[in-house]
């Protein structure tokens, strides 16, 4: 996803003119003042070369207008700028000048932004992960933020550096103990487990060091097995439920035949021994190293020393990447290796299918359809290009960029975490169409749209529109 964030001033095509000026100046072969430096020496290539360049000063600042110096511009700095030759900066710099200078502007979301969701029906609580400020937030299940209230306060918050909570995208609540299992998606590479006593900035009660890029989580309580999807390796890894630290997975599902492709959500039907996975549709092929193991310990070396680990980026086949339609792939619960799905549910209605929840009573699958601003409900036995049984979508539903979904069978309710609107919304389990939620938990004023800055690892500046481009 790319988000343009417009800066305060807009100058139309000044930026592009400036760039054209660069090229024009290059063609004019202005003198380059770097004769003393070896980089300025050019070798003939038989082709036109950019030999010299000088700034097109007429395009600095507003077109043909004087740009007043700001209060932060020193005379020395201004003179340095004017006198600097194109060969490189040669003035004296005060290296500490920038360290203490505050930013001119900061774009930062001040509200909790809900990503994943799970209900603890035994203890009447709902748990949400906040991917903006890195919290796990626990609310009473019947919390309903009044329309005029800014937000609802959580009963408990787990967050802070000691918690190792970062970009948390998956949640599981142990039905017996109430332990919270929370999946870190990015740099932390660890599944953190907190007891019900956890509150504030506390270390996790247990950790499991996972592959890089885990997203969804599900648990087979009868078999005591824990399932995680791995985006970066297009894999599912299965651990003993009580695994910790450097324990290895007991099974890995990965390979071209699996059709796993940037997998996100995962749900289990333990009665019929099935595993369901949502896929964005982006994948590459892998080949194992000579010993059948991942080269260099898998993606970013996270699996060094493990007995079993998914093949990683170093094991990818160059140029094998592909875009496939988004889907739900269905496997035998014990599937491992390069095993094909038993069924695939696909169709044009999928648009970044993310969170997934299974209703064993009605045999239905609920999909948080992120970019579709909808929740799709399928017959869990469906196969191929089938229409959903129901779609919840529309302005009254308040569903906006849903990334998490949870079916509360006990209370006959459907929960949705809306990454796009700082809210968790609750519906009757059989809701359909543009249905208003029964209740809503908000972390920000009503009607406010989230910035949705999530993990801004890069940015670019569009000089034509004066916009900051942010991939998430």
């Amino acid at each position, binding site marked *: 996803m790319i988000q343009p964030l417009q*800066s305060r001033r807009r100058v139309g095509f000044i930026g592009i003119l400036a760039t054209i000026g660069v090229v024009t100046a290059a063609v004019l072969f202005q003198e380059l003042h770097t004769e003393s430096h070896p980089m300025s020496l050019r070798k003939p290539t038989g082709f036109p070369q950019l030999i010299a360049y000088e700034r097109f000063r007429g395009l600095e600042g507003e077109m043909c207008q004087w740009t007043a110096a700001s209060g932060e511009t020193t005379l020395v700095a201004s003179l340095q700028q004017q006198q600097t030759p194109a060969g490189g900066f040669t003035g004296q710099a005060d290296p500490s000048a920038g360290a203490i200078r505050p930013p001119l502007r900061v774009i930062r979301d001040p509200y909790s932004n809900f990503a994943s969701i799970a209900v603890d029906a035994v203890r009447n609580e709902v748990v949400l992960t906040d991917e903006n400020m890195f919290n796990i937030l626990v609310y009473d299940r019947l919390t309903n933020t009044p329309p005029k209230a800014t937000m609802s306060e959580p009963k408990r918050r787990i967050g802070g550096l000691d918690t190792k909570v970062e970009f948390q995208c998956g949640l599981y609540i142990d039905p017996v103990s109430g332990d919270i299992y929370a999946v870190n998606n990015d740099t932390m590479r660890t599944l953190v487990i907190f007891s019900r006593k956890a509150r504030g900035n506390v270390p996790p009660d247990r950790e499991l060091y996972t592959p890089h890029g885990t997203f969804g989580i599900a648990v087979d309580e009868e078999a005591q097995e824990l399932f995680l999807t791995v985006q970066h390796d297009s894999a599912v890894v299965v651990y003993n439920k009580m695994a910790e630290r450097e324990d290895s997975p007991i099974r890995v599902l990965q390979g071209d035949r699996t059709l796993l492709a940037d997998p996100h959500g995962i749900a289990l039907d333990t009665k019929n021994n099935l595993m369901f996975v949502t896929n964005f549709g982006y994948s590459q092929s892998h080949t194992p190293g000579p010993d059948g193991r991942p080269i260099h310990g898998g993606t970013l070396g996270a699996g060094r020393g493990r007995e079993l680990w998914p093949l990683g980026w170093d094991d990818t086949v160059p140029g094998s990447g*592909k875009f496939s339609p988004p889907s739900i792939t269905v496997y035998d619960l014990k599937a491992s290796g390069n095993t094909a799905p038993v069924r695939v549910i696909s169709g044009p209605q999928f648009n970044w299918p993310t969170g997934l929840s299974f209703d064993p009573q009605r045999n239905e699958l609920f999909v948080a359809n992120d970019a579709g601003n909808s929740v799709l409900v399928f017959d869990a036995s469906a196969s191929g290009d089938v229409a959903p049984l129901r779609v919840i979508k529309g302005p009254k539903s308040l569903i906006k960029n849903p990334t998490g979904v949870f079916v509360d069978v006990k209370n006959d309710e459907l929960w949705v975490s809306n990454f796009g609107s700082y809210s968790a919304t609750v519906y009757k389990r059989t809701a359909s169409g543009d249905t208003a939620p029964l209740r809503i938990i908000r972390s920000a004023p009503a009607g406010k749209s989230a910035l949705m800055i999530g993990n801004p690892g890069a940015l670019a500046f569009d000089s034509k529109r004066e916009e900051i481009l942010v991939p998430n």
Partner: protein
Amino acid sequence: MVSGQKTLLGRTMHGIRYDAIHDEILVPHQFAQAVLVFRGGADGEEPPIRVIQGSLSQMMAPERIEVDPVNNEILVPDGTANKILVYPREANGNVAPIRVLQSSGNSFSEVNVDPVRDLLVVGGSTRIKGKSTSALMIFNRTDEGDVQPQSMIAGPNSRGAGGSRIALNPDLGLAFGTVRGNGVHSDESFVGVWNYVEDTGDAPPRWTIGGPKGMLRQPRGVALDRRNKSIIVSDKYLNALLTYYFPEVF
């Protein structure tokens, strides 16, 4: 906002560049081993206008990208393949690189083109006394094959030159690089400004911006707004974009 299935983007994109001359946005796709090119004004669920992908491309996990609108090239520093793959700017489909740059003993993660001096300014790492050290490496723009850099800024005094994302001001020969402290949250983080024309070896940054002991905690992306003499930084821990006015470097 550009989002949705038809864009071929996901929620895990790691690089971006804007081509001001041709008004295009370029995004590498590490999962599908592809380069996506969008109109500069793309919005909503708008598909890319060009896609580089396929068996000839040699891409493994492209996370970063650079566009050279002067010489009409797209450069992909593939950190997994440890190569810089160069494609024609208007390439579309299953296209082989026109040049491939490697450098024995050095790793690549980021590349910028200096069209003024016809150089590649490459971020990555090298080995100094057997220890992997981040490095800012300078190559001729058209270097290919296994080539050693013509100069390099690296060492303890350089304070992480070339360690993460880089932006250039070729007018002054300055490279802006985001440097993270230890861990996921560190007030030792900053944006360093190195002079890759005048300096070499274990050269310190000419300036540090936003830290140490500033607001930055885990800076990642960096871009320059040259008209407004500003440096824009994304911080992963803060989930924020910070703009620093710093006329000294423009």
